[in-house]
C-alpha cells in the first residue's frame, strides 16, 4: 500500500464515517435522551432520500427540494412520537423494538405504494459537479467534499448546542438521569417531542444529502440501520462525541478492512463492536 493509495483510502474512510455520523447522530440522541430504541431509523434515512428525489423533479432544484423536505421529515417525526412512542417511554425496550419493527414494515410498504419498486437517482447538483484529481486515474467529486463539510459543520453545531446551550445541559442531564430532569420541572413531554423530531430530521437529512451519491431503492434503509446501531453502541449510547468517533472508526474499518482483510470484510464491524463491548461494556465514551 503506497502513500497515495493510503491517503485516498483515508479520505474515503473519513467521508463514509462522517456520513455515518450524521445518520447515527439522530439515533444516539433519541437513545440517550428518550431511552427509545428506534429500529425504524433506517426507514427515516430512506424516506429522506425518496423525498428529495421526488421533490427535486417536482421543484427542479435539489436545494429547494431539501428545503421543502426538511419540514416534512420533522412533521413525520412529530406524528410518530405523538401517536406511537408516547405510551412506550416507561416500558421495556422490548416493546420499543417491536413497535418500531412494525413501523419498518409500514414505512417500507408505504414507500412502495407511493414511489414504486424501481431504482432512482438524483443528479449531483450543478454547483458541485466538478472533480479534483487525486491520482493519475482517480478523481474525487466536489460533492463528496461538500458532504464532508456539511457533516463536519453539523457535528460542530450539535457539539456546540450540547456543550454551550441550556438545551444542551438538559440533554446531557437527561442522558445521565432522566428522572432528575423531570424532577427539575422541565417539560419532558415537549423535550421528547423536540428531540425525536430533530433526530428524525437529522437522519432524513442525511438521506437527502446522500441521495446524489447513492442509488435510491427500496430497502436502502435496512442495510444502513444495523451499521448505525453498531456506531452508536461502540461510541456509547447517548454520546454525540461517541457517535462521532464510533462513526469514524467504523468508516475507516470498513474502508481498510475491505482492502486488507477481504475475507472478513462483511464481519469486521461486528467483530469491532464485540471487542469494544468486551473491554468497555457501555461503549467507548459512556
Amino acid at each position, binding site marked *: 500500500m503506497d502513500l497515495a493509495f493510503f491517503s485516498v483510502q483515508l479520505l474515503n474512510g473519513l467521508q463514509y464515517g462522517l456520513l455515518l455520523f450524521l445518520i447515527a447522530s439522530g439515533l444516539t440522541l433519541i437513545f440517550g435522551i428518550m431511552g427509545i430504541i428506534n429500529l425504524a431509523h433506517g426507514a427515516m434515512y430512506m424516506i429522506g432520500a425518496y423525498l428529495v428525489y421526488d421533490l427535486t423533479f417536482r421543484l427542479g432544484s435539489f436545494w429547494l427540494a431539501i428545503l421543502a423536505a426538511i419540514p416534512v421529515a420533522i412533521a413525520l417525526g412529530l406524528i410518530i412520537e405523538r401517536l406511537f412512542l408516547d405510551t412506550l417511554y416507561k416500558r421495556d425496550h422490548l416493546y420499543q423494538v417491536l*413497535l418500531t419493527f412494525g413501523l419498518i*414494515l409500514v414505512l417500507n410498504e408505504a414507500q412502495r405504494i407511493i414511489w414504486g419498486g424501481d431504482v432512482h437517482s438524483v443528479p449531483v447538483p450543478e454547483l458541485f459537479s466538478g472533480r479534483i484529481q487525486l491520482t493519475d486515474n482517480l478523481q474525487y467529486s466536489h460533492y463528496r467534499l461538500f458532504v464532508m463539510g456539511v457533516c463536519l459543520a453539523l457535528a460542530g453545531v450539535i457539539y456546540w448546542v450540547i456543550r454551550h446551550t441550556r438545551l444542551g445541559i438538559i440533554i446531557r442531564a437527561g442522558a445521565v438521569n432522566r428522572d432528575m430532569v423531570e424532577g427539575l420541572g422541565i417539560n419532558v413531554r415537549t423535550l421528547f417531542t423536540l428531540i425525536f423530531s430533530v433526530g428524525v430530521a437529522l437522519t432524513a437529512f442525511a438521506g437527502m444529502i446522500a441521495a446524489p451519491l447513492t442509488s435510491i431503492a427500496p430497502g436502502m434503509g435496512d442495510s444502513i440501520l444495523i451499521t448505525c446501531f453498531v456506531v452508536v453502541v461502540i461510541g456509547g449510547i447517548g454520546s454525540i462525541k461517541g457517535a462521532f468517533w464510533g462513526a469514524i472508526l467504523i468508516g475507516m474499518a470498513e474502508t481498510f478492512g475491505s482492502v486488507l482483510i477481504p475475507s472478513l470484510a462483511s464481519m469486521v464491524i461486528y467483530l469491532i463492536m464485540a471487542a469494544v463491548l468486551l473491554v468497555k461494556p457501555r461503549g467507548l465514551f459512556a
Partner: protein
Amino acid sequence: MLHTYPKRVVVIMLVLTAIVAIFPLWGPAVFGAQSDFMMEKMTLMLILALFAMSLDLLVGIVGLVSLGHALFFGLGAYTLALASPAFSPAAIWWMAPLVMLVAALAALVVGFLVIRTRGIFFIMTTLAFGQMLYYFVSTSRHTGGTDGVFIMFRPSVEVGGAVLLDLDNPLTFFYVCLAMVVVGYLFLRWLTRSFFGQVLDGIHDNEHRMEALGYATGHYKLVAFVISGVMASLAGMLAAMQYGFANPSQLGWHTSGEVLMMLILGGMGTVFGPILGAFAYEILQHTFEHLTTHWPILMGITIILAVLILPRGIAGLIIDPPSRASLAKSSPLRWLKPGRAAPASEAVKPAAPAPREG
C-alpha cells in the same frame, strides 16, 4: 412470572392441544383437499412455537431481550445440514445430541460474552453475534452460501435396523413436532418452578438484590442462555428437517425480530403464551398474504396495535380477562392520549395472579 395459572389456562391449553392432536380426524372434513397442506402449516407453527418458547425463557423469565436468537435456530438447521451424510439418512440418535452439543457450546461462548452487558447493550451484542454468523454462513464456501443448502434425507429413528419412526411421513413428523412442543412446555414449566427458576425470577425482578443475597447471577443467566439456545437449535433442526432445506436468512435479524413478535403477541413470561403467539402470528400472515400484496402494512399495523393495546399478549387476556367495566373504560382513544399509559410494571411483566372470576 406466574407460578400458578388460573385453572382456565390449563383447560384451554389442554383443549387446544387436543384439537391440534386430532387434526387428522377433523382436518379433511374442514379443509378438504387442503388438509395435507394445513397439517404441514401446523407442523411449521409447532416448530415456531418451540422456538418462541425457548426465547421466552430468556426474555420473559430472565428479562434479557435478545435480538439474535435466530443464531441458534439457524445453527441447529446448519448443523443438521452439514453433518448429514450425502446419500443416506442420518440417525436421529446422534444427530439431535450433536445439534444440542454444538448449540450449547456456541451458547456458552456467546453467552459468556453477552451476559456481561445489560439492557440495550444486550440487545445489540446479541444482534451483532447473530449477524456475524449470518455473514459467515452467507459467504463461506462450505455452507452453500446465500443460496442455502439441501438436506437430501431426513434423519431416521431406527433401532437395530427396524425403522421405528419414519420422519419422511408428514403425519409422523407432525406428531414428533407436537411431542417436542409438549415436552418443551413441560420442561420449561418444571424449570421455572424449580429453585433455579426462582432465582431467575429474582434476577428479573432485581438483579442487584439477588447479587447481594450471594447468588452468582451471571452463572444463572449463562445457564438460562445455554438452555434457551439449545431449545432454539432443536427448533431449527426440525425446521430444516421439514423441507430438507437450510438458508442463511434463517439466521438473520429479521427472523429474530419475528420470533420476538410471536412472543409478545402470545404473552411473554407465561411459557404457554408464545405457543399461542406463534400460531397467531403465522395465521395472521397467512391471511394477510392472501388479502393483498401490500400485506406488510397490515402486519405492521397489527404489530403496532398489539404493542399498544395488548402488551401482555393473548395470554394476558386468558389469565386476566378484561371485565365489562374495564372494557367500557378503555376506549381505543385512551391509548393515543399522552400520560395515561398502562403502568410500567404491569406492562413489562405479568404481575400478581389475576383475581379469579366468579
